[in-house]
């Protein structure tokens, strides 16, 4: 009887040990992935020699990339960790970086107001924090276009090669009915990034609105040569604009 029970205990022990070992391996794999993700996100931060702040920031990033599914509750906590880290950092650019991360978390959490506050604080600390400026521009886009424009222009001041910002500014001009300015901005976006197909398509539409068929077709063909995704919609939009222009 004792031998059988001993055997049973050994077998259960082996099974238990195997499952624990497998679990440990899985946890280690997960940690490795998390560490890699944190390293990837960490690249822009410097934090000087303050190891405690470095660790805190990394921990916050770790919480953020810990699982594929980040709980909403966790996001708020992580945002708070970023804000606290920002308080302890000395360098303005790092402070702004932490605040912009807090803003991102609040945005994902679904609190655009808090996100905007964080972004504004980030810009106040370091005006060269272009990510925060761009996100603020997007935030103000709907109800305060002038403010949005100011933020986008600040992005271009510090980073004149961002084609997406030129594109967003051009969209703003187009919304106000200023076709010439919009076309100029779209063209700058194309110059900043040669393959910016979306801008090519928009120049085609704006030119069609103005009745400039030749330019519209030229940019349409360029967009087609660059394999624009929604070419059928683009075709319809250009046709409609040209018809409206001839009728008026």
């Amino acid at each position: 009887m004792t031998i059988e029970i001993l055997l049973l205990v050994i077998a259960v022990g082996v099974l238990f040990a195997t499952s624990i070992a497998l679990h440990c391996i899985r946890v280690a794999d997960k940690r490795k992935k998390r560490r890699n993700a944190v390293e990837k996100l960490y690249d822009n931060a410097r934090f000087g020699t303050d190891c405690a702040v470095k660790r805190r920031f990394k921990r916050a990033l770790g919480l953020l990339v810990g699982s594929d599914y980040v709980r909403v509750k966790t996001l708020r906590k992580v945002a708070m960790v970023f804000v606290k880290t920002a308080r302890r950092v000395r360098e303005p650019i790092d402070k702004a970086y932490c605040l912009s991360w807090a803003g991102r978390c609040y945005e994902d959490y679904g609190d655009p107001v808090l996100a905007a506050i964080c972004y504004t604080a980030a810009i106040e600390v370091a005006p060269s924090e272009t990510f925060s400026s761009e996100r603020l521009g997007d935030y103000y886009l709907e109800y305060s276009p002038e403010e949005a424009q100011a933020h986008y222009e600040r992005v271009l001041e510090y980073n004149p090669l961002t084609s997406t910002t030129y594109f967003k500014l051009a969209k703003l001009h187009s919304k106000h009915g200023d076709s010439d300015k919009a076309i100029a901005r779209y063209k700058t976006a194309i110059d900043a990034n040669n393959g910016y197909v979306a801008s090519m398509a928009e120049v085609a539409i704006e030119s069609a609105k103005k009745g400039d068929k030749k330019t519209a077709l030229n940019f349409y063909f360029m967009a087609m040569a660059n394999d624009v995704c929604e070419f059928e919609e683009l075709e319809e939009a250009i046709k409609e604009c040209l018809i409206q222009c001839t009728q008026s």
Partner: protein
Amino acid sequence: MLDSVYTIIGLISFVLFLTGVLTGLAHICKRLVEAHCIRNCAIKNIGNEVSIYNDKGAKLAYKGICAYLNEDHSKALTYLENAVRYSQVSHNSAFCFDWMSRCYEALGKYRESLNCCVKAVEAEPSNIKALFGLANMYVRNGAFSKAEFYYNRVLRYDQKNSYASFMLGTLFMGRGLYDKAEEQFLKTIELNNESEEAFAELSVVMAIKGDYSRMDSYFAEVTKSSNGKYTDSDRLRKRLNSIKKMKDL
């Protein structure tokens, strides 16, 4: 009665023991196979002719590639940086810089990645792989004129490289230089007459230029050269029709 209870307990313990041992063994085997695949892949990349046991630089590069394949990019970078220090041949340095660029790209550090590509080309200006890497990087960054320069350099060293020729054609096409694009795609077809992508792009160029008969013949070549395997032919047809309609507007 008691005997049968003992037998059942014995059997259960045997099954549990077996399950535990087999699960553990299966996992160990899986890990070993994975590690073996990674090692083989790293050795293939370094080249079978290089002995990693006698060459310290090659050994470090091998470790770096293994770490990269294991998704440990920071560790891979450390190994590869050391490998560059040990490599005395420019080809080896270019090889290490190429892998370092991949590591930086995986880490999301695109500027460093581009720098490594440039260093790889500087280390060995005739290295086609490095030239390709740099040209492709410039394409991704939207710097088409620089990309064009490096694709041309690939073609200078390897005149039969149909992929570089095709990429040059797409660069011309993207900038609206349709005549140059046509010429380049025709060269690509001369190098590889089964390049369905070149035929497809040529048909688009012809549509833009308004030469519909040649457009149709090139479109027919697309399906012919790929034996009906070209998956985007429906989309291409729609694209061509759309251009045709706009041309006749």
